């Protein structure tokens, strides 16, 4: 009912964030989408047609007609993409689930720590960001490889006889993802746990809930928004992760980020790579929209 009654100034203020999204997010996406409909070419740029202002209307229309969905058709024929998607989703899913198990106790300990210690703990949690991500992933090679630190230690302790082959496997990729993305899981969980009213736990205990029941009935359900936020924040970039599978993975590691890289730079098939990227976006945004809709509906219900 307020619509149509906004002044120009109000519209401008409300429009500014949308402009931001259009310029910095939608425009590049549109460019990628357009490339995905083009044909590969042995030229620079490595696809055609290229639209230009000098084409005129007729020229542009003619070029428009040469756009096709050919790049998308290859997905049906080439198992490589399907396998890449499935492996990516599996690795990201397993990593996210394990990361949740690692991060939850961490976040809980941080949220229950004495108030004056908490800023220090948060600082320590994000401290790794002060060094290069690349170097930290490289460091894991030294830790994980057959003659690496972990295998040395385990053998010295006589826990294993032969080195574990972790490096250059999917396990190494999962470890790398958990390590690299942990703060993104930790901080939303911490935020959700820290603002819980301690009186709620006391009330639950007072009503006869054992410490375990207090956790399952009160602490965990109330932290679910943090769990969802953390998982999305970690899962989505992990699916498209390129550096970690490239450095820690082996030949079996077929993640979509790596496949995209190969298409862009080795095969120089930009349309196919762009089409794969667009498909990935659709795959990831779909569940996100469903989750967001469910959340909005749940929030909207009371009023």
């Amino acid at each position, binding site marked *: 009912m307020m619509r149509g009654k906004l002044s120009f100034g109000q519209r401008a203020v409300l429009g500014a964030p949308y402009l931001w999204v259009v310029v910095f997010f939608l425009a590049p996406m549109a460019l990628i989408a357009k490339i995905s409909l083009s044909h590969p070419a042995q030229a620079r740029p490595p696809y055609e047609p290229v639209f230009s202002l000098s084409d005129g209307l007729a020229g542009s229309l003619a070029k428009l007609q040469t756009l096709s969905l050919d790049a998308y058709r290859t997905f049906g024929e080439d198992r490589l993409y399907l396998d890449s998607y499935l492996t990516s989703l599996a690795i990201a899913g397993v990593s996210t689930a394990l990361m949740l198990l690692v991060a939850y106790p961490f976040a809980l300990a941080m949220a229950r720590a004495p108030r004056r210690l908490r800023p220090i703990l948060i600082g320590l949690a994000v401290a790794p960001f002060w060094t290069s991500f690349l170097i930290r992933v490289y460091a894991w090679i030294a830790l994980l490889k057959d003659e690496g630190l972990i295998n040395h230690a385990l053998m010295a302790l006589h826990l294993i006889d032969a080195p574990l082959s972790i490096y250059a496997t999917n396990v190494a990729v999962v470890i790398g993802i958990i390590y690299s993305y942990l703060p993104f899981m930790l901080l939303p969980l911490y935020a959700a746990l820290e603002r819980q009213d301690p*009186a709620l736990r006391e*009330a639950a205990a*007072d009503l006869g*809930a054992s410490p375990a029941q207090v956790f399952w009935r009160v602490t965990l359900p109330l932290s679910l928004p943090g769990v969802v936020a953390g998982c999305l924040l970690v899962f989505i970039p992990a699916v498209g992760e390129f550096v970690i599978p490239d450095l820690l993975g082996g030949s079996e590691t077929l993640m979509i980020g790596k496949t995209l890289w190969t298409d862009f730079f080795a095969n120089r098939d930009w349309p196919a790579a762009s089409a794969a990227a667009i498909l990935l976006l659709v795959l990831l945004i779909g569940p996100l929209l469903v989750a967001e809709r469910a959340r909005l509906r749940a929030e909207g219900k009371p009023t």
Partner: protein
Amino acid sequence: MTTNPLLSVQHASKRFGAVIALGDVSLDVGVGEFFALLGPSGCGKTTLMRLIAGFETPDSGRVLLGGEDLTGAPPHCRAVNMMFQSYALFPHLSVFDNIAFGLRRQGASRETVSARVAELMDIVQLQDFGARRIEQLSGGQKQRVALARALAPGPSLLLLDEPLAALDRKLREETQFQLKDIQRRLKTSFVIVTHDQDEALALADRIAVMRAGNIEQIGSPVEIYERPASRFVAGFVGATNMIEGVVAHDDGAWFVTPFGRLKRADCVLPAGARATLSLRPEQIAVARDGDGVAGVVEDVAFRGETTQLRVGVAGRAALRVSASKGEGFQLVESVRLEIAPDAGVLFAETE
């Protein structure tokens, strides 16, 4: 009081670092009794209640419930429930599930739970609210859900932490009567923590007045009001005039004040002792003539049944006096104040 108290706190003490929250506190609460812990903030009443609930452990002393030593037992193992000041309702659960929480922890069957929850929603008059979410409730409704939730497991003792503090004045008075009514009907012992003396006087069978981690006096509302054990209790519970003076013994006991000698019925204090007389406003009779203390009306405040007067007397002092409705005293009118020899309580100047 009774030979077998339900709750018995024996010489409990508790300190947090350098702060002594509880000095040495002992009290008994009987079966079905409505007991109030009254005191200003920081007097240790909340610590004492958290000690009974099991959220704090005493440094020394014991807490017994029905003769059984509770010291060291965690909160979930105590047949004591608490209604929190913030209500602490579970925001992710419906009204029904909030009230059912304690019952389900006891392992009650589905039928038992729904029957008991329905019974409690009936008691607190929230019959059709089972499916509501907590954020859909008003403050008064939340308060009643909190009460129902705490009562649901059928505790022998219910602790109420400032249960009416978050309600507005009108609602608070209504709820006071409901609370008293529910307590009488269920015959559960209630221990209420409050800083509001009116609330304690109106609700409780007995009151413990606390100050700085210790109990100053335990007694019925009438005892506390009419025979305060200390100057602090007299000042904290109800309005009073604190009159300083000196005791004299010649031809009977006298209390010598800046505005005149007051006859006392009897006085155990020796002559020459400095003391304070606590006189309630209604213990001073005000008249237009007579041979009482002379004074001038300085302020008149209409309070419905009574009118509160501030009467200036000699020695730059002023007394609060309560006059009944029909008298119609005016500002700057000269009056006489009659103080009966047995009115008020005299405290030796030791505090």
